[in-house]
């Protein structure tokens, strides 16, 4: 029985996904049963995760519900809840298949939760495939849209490649160490850390490529702008936050536990990746004229900042990654949410010019967008500032001054494009013919209120979550 405890949160979400899928078959038009089921499942999973806190439950030797995993679980469930709340209304308006949408989102969340909890490379791969497949389909959910199909196909092809890399990495690791369980891989690697074999280095490199692809780190970021722009905006919000959180959770778990002894081999490589990711995300974002594409480059830059936390390592580095993931998830989802609710049936309204004079038309939405953008840019008193401060503080502590300096400077560059949106919203005159924007759905209002509240709360009183993140990383490594 104790075995099952560790998977209960994942199980709850999976069950709610199945229920949502079944309910779709019996749903009258206009009923919102899948949403309710999804919310029940996600809230239940949060409660279950809270219940398991500090209990160190393990299931089948391959899934561990330690505090690290539970922290990630909760972040993912919050992302799921916000996504579902934001989608209500958008899905109807865009006439996307509601049942499939909610079921796939929930399956995706379940897969991601597994990703964060898995302690066996094969299970990590399994989880990766579970949520990747959901997200591939979600990306192409709008079947009539050429951009959507292109995005989905690109994402799928490149994703399949990276999965292959990842699988090879697992195979090589198994060849060298004789196991795929992190608990056994770790000591085997530590034993030959002084003089690693080529095969082992290859395994590390391949695994890193797999993860770098999922977190969209340079040079494996190529799919990101296209996929983010082509996908329905609510899906973009979901995949830019949840996928990143899950992938980084596994990245940290694999590289900072089992592969930690080899860190002298992989840190130099990752160092350059982080540097390139921060710079490219910030600089290329400047020239974008499509807000979704701009936010895609912004999410690349943020992946770079999180990588800095990973490179810094240690208790602070790991905790900084967790804290960053949590704040980034809420903030970025909020920003994409605003873009999503601005869309009308026939047009996405996601060009920079579409934000012209938004303040005059929709002051609340403009205000929300500003809050989220300022948090992405790292201004106090928002959560984004504390997150950046924590990551760079960890970098300074690890003597990675160069990364910290490049990090803060690139965040100034990225502020430039966040402000371009603000300029459009506030500082340009009202357009002659303002497009009629649809009314805000109550569920979306709730989601925005929650997200904005979290952004400010964590910006002013971050202690609670900082301590939680700090406690989460003590238990495992």
């Amino acid at each position, binding site marked *: 029985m104790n075995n099952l405890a560790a998977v209960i949160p994942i199980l709850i979400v999976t069950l709610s996904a199945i229920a949502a899928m079944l309910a779709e078959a019996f749903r009258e038009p206009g009923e919102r049963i899948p949403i309710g089921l999804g919310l029940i499942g996600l809230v239940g999973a949060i409660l279950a995760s809270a219940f398991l806190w500090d209990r160190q439950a393990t299931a089948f030797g391959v899934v561990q519900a330690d505090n690290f995993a539970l922290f990630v679980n909760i972040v993912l469930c919050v992302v799921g809840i916000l996504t579902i709340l934001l989608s209500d209304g958008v899905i109807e308006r865009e006439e996307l298949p509601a049942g499939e949408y909610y079921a796939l989102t929930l399956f995706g969340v379940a897969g991601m939760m597994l990703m964060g909890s898995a302690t066996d490379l094969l299970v990590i791969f399994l989880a990766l495939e579970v949520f990747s497949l959901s997200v591939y389909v979600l990306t192409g959910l709008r079947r009539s849209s050429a951009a959507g199909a292109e995005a989905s196909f690109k994402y799928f092809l490149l994703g399949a490649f990276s999965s292959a890399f990842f699988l090879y990495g697992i195979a090589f690791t198994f060849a060298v160490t004789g196991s795929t369980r992190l608990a056994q891989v770790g000591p085997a690697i530590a034993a030959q850390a002084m003089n690693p074999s080529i095969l082992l280095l290859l395994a590390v490199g391949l695994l890193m490529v797999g993860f770098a692809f999922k977190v969209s780190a340079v040079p494996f970021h190529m799919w990101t702008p296209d996929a983010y722009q082509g996908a329905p905006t609510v899906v973009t919000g979901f995949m830019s936050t949840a996928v990143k959180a899950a992938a980084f959770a596994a990245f940290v778990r694999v590289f900072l536990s089992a592969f930690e002894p080899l860190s002298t081999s992989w840190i130099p490589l990752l160092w350059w990746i982080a540097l390139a990711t921060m710079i490219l995300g910030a600089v290329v974002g400047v020239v974008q004229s499509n807000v979704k594409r701009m936010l895609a480059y912004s999410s690349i830059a943020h992946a770079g900042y999180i990588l800095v936390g990973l490179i810094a390592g240690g208790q602070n580095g790991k905790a900084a990654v967790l804290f960053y993931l949590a704040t980034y998830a809420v903030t970025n989802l909020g920003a994409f949410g605003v873009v999503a609710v601005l869309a009308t049936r026939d047009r996405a309204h996601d060009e920079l010019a579409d934000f012209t004079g938004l303040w005059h038309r929709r002051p609340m939405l403009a205000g929300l967008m500003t809050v989220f953008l300022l948090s992405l840019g790292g201004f106090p008193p928002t959560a984004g500032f504390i997150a950046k401060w924590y990551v760079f503080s960890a970098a300074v502590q690890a003597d990675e001054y160069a990364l910290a300096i490049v990090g803060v400077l690139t965040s*100034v560059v990225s502020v430039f494009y966040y402000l371009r949106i603000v300029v459009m919203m506030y500082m340009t005159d009202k357009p002659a013919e303002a497009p009629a924007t649809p009314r805000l759905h109550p569920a979306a209002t709730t989601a925005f209120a929650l997200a904005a509240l979290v952004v400010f709360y964590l910006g002013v009183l971050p202690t609670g979550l900082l301590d939680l993140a*700090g406690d989460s990383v003590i238990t495992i490594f």
Partner: protein
Amino acid sequence: MSFPLLTSIVFLPLAGAVLLLLVGGRDGERDDLVRRLALGVSLAVFLLTLVLWAGFDPASAEYQFQEDHEWIPRFGIAYHLGVDGISLFLVVLTGFLTPLALLGSWASVKTKVAAFSFFMLALESAMLGVFVSIDLFLFYVFWDAMLIPMYFLIGVWGYDRRVYAAVKFILYTMAGSVLMLVAILALAYLHSEATGAYSFDLEALFALTIAPETQVWLFLAFAVAFAIKVPLFPFHTWLPDAHVEAPTAGSVILAGVLLKMGTYGLLRFAFPLFPEAAAIFAPYLAGLAVIGIVYGALVAMVQPDLKKLVAYSSVSHLGFVVLGICAMNPQGVEGAIYQMLNHGVSTGALFLIVGMLSERRHTRLIAEFGGLKKVMPRLSAAFLVITLSSIALPGLNGFVGEFLILMGAFLWSPRFAAVAASGVILSAVYMLWMFQRVNYGPVTNEKNQHLADLSARELWVLVPTIVMAVVMGVLPGPFLAPMAPSVDRVIERVDRGRSAVVSERLGQTPLPASPASKDTEETGSDPVSPEPES
């Protein structure tokens, strides 16, 4: 527990700002109420700052009205507030200028009044927070948060090129301050290396002994952030744009308070935290300051635009402040603080006057005016007093500050003082010439023929600044007295830090820092901490 006076001062404007957002109607039907409320809140804040001044013990060098609560204990970050003689008057100045700026834009801001007042009050909160924070993290939070309302004030309510100016302002300032953030993190890390615990508390960080090589880097990071804010030549290019494009209230606050944060930061953080690096760089900083004094004055002289002229005069005036700080003796530093207040009062008033002119004529070009004395005698009179205060006429406030600074600078390095003194003459040239062209002579432009003189509201805006200019010129004692103990403490701390490092490196007793030995600055060699022989 005593009444948290500083917290009230810092957060009352923000609370008022949030209230305004709730009160402000959708289409501006409640604009008048909003204006009154905003003014009321800012006046209440000013009263509180006066209470602070009244309760301040001028004999003490310690931080007073301290509030110290844990904020993020995991990293030794505290909500630690306090004022000493250095920050006291900057707090009062902020409280003094904000209501004037609000009153001054009563008629000129017609759109989105609620949002305008919101940003003004939010800005006031952040500015006050900067001056009363003793915790570096808290300081940085306020320092950075302040950019956002200013950005909106310039970008939304400014003139034609407002967007360019707003973006330039925020990016310039941020680029400097993020490096300071890294330096702050490094300081906290050094503290944890030395003591085992993180701390961002200024007093705790003062106790650190930092290797001179490290000091150099950290000092540079801090100094660049502050130099951009001051702005010190050659980091000043954002300032004319921001000033010219900002609405009147924005210019008043920008010149009156924001620029002082740079000089305040140098005095409060950069110099005492890194005394030895400060000794190395002080001559260079002073050199840039002196260049700024002359350059700002020369460029101001040829400006056709009133606002641009005042903006460049700020570069010149702030150069004096930096020079006084670099001298690091009681006269220089007290003069620098005094000059910060003077500049706030007189340049704030100048921007208000320019705002009134441009409200009437929708132009700020000097050539468009002329002979205003005949049409608007009251405005001209006020303009004259403020102009004279700005060029440091004895009997008005500017004189006290500049005199003290020049005296301090002379004790430290006569050469710098000599060049800087030319700035006094140059300021008389550009200010008086401008005044003459605007106010005297015949009314050449038909459009100036029937301009209305100052209204009662505008009198209420200008009279307080004139009163302050006179009071501070005649009675500097009550202002200088509370500064003295805190200034002495900073100087003593800087000297001790320098001599401690020097003696540590040379293995001998501290060198006496006599003024006579400080004559070789311009060659770049450093008299207080010579390089070790070995």
